[in-house]
């Protein structure tokens, strides 16, 4: 298998955008994996938070097609424990925002079943809309 890193400069662009939007320096990450080990939702992610950072830094393709940053709810469990003080939740937030800008909203409220809309507390709906729509 051949993996091309930083192909065509595109990945650099994504890394730069993520760093700007999140205010985080991804080069500070030394890939200890503490974040992945701390993440209660890791089992539902297709790439752990440490791997998301690695893929961004190496410019590996298709980071924006991953589900991990939609799965991340910003619980800050990893942020609290990262020995390099990297705010992974902000990195995930930046990826969500870039994806929404490029591909549109991730949640279409109009498609939610009416019964769910009646039942769900406002706190869940507002949080979900804030995280999944532009």
């Amino acid at each position, binding site marked *: 298998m051949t993996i091309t890193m930083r192909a065509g400069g595109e990945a650099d662009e994504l890394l730069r955008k993520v760093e700007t939007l999140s205010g985080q320096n991804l080069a500070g990450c030394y890939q200890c994996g503490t974040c992945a080990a701390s993440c209660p939702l890791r089992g539902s992610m297709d790439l752990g938070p440490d791997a998301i950072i690695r893929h961004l830094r190496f410019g590996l393709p298709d980071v924006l097609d991953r589900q991990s940053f939609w799965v991340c709810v910003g619980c800050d469990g990893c942020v609290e424990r990262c020995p390099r003080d990297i705010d992974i939740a902000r990195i995930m937030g930046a990826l969500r925002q870039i994806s929404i800008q490029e591909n549109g909203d991730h949640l279409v409220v109009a498609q939610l079943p009416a019964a769910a809309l009646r039942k769900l507390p406002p*706190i869940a709906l507002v949080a979900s809309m804030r995280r999944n729509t532009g």
Partner: protein
Amino acid sequence: MQIAYYPGCTMKASARQHEDAALAVLGALGVELREMDEWNCCGVVHSLTSDNLIRHMAPVRVFARLREQGADEVATLCDMCFNTLGRANLLAQRHPEQIAAISATSGDDLSYDGGADVLHLLQVLRDRVGFAKIRARVRRPLRGLSVYPYYGCKLLRPAEVGIDDPETPAVLRDLMLALGATVVEGSLQTQCCGAYHVVNRDEVVTQRVSATTEQARAGGAEAIVLSCPLCHYNFDALQPQSGAQMPIFYYTQLMGIAFGLDPDQLGLEEQQIALLPLLERHNLVHAPTPGD
């Protein structure tokens, strides 16, 4: 003692029983929460990206109105509101220029200098009222009732706004001990419940809720006690999907029970998973104690 109060949307909707129980319990402790005027939804979550200032407008507006009303601190019951307001407050202290930019979009109606304090009700109970006074108010100790305190995320993290040690919090444990309950603890007490994924990825929430209730049950707990209305909804509404039926209490409801307040004030029937059978088994619900 009087404190300005920011309810947030959920206390007026799915968490009414928490607000009702809180007001009853605080009345018994001589604390008055005075609901602020003109409050708005805080936005629920703190905006995490640098170019999205407009999303901080909601919490900043709450602070601006609070200051106009002459208050320099505000209490809330909701963990999500507490966290969002607390983080917006830090933003105002550290980046006044961003608050000025937000204010400029609304005719400079939103000036705020970061000078107000946000208090979670658990802080009021621990740091202002004190657990000794709470213990002294107990009329019907929760003797024999085993509870698992669940903290979730927003009370504790990030540490700069959290109210307790993020790894080994004690506030709910100490409160429950003051009420005479037995406390069961475990590693999942501080882990996220899956939060807003209940909207469109509820399998994530079911998995978290099921692992946590199983840990509580295995440790001998009969009920979970918590604070956050989103955690409450998730544990109460999604637990049956995993076959479990562990009662979920707001800490204010258990305070009301231990204080011997009228159960009708505590919204005990507003959960999907019934609370009364467990309380009856422990002889904790009767007519109010005479003289209270």
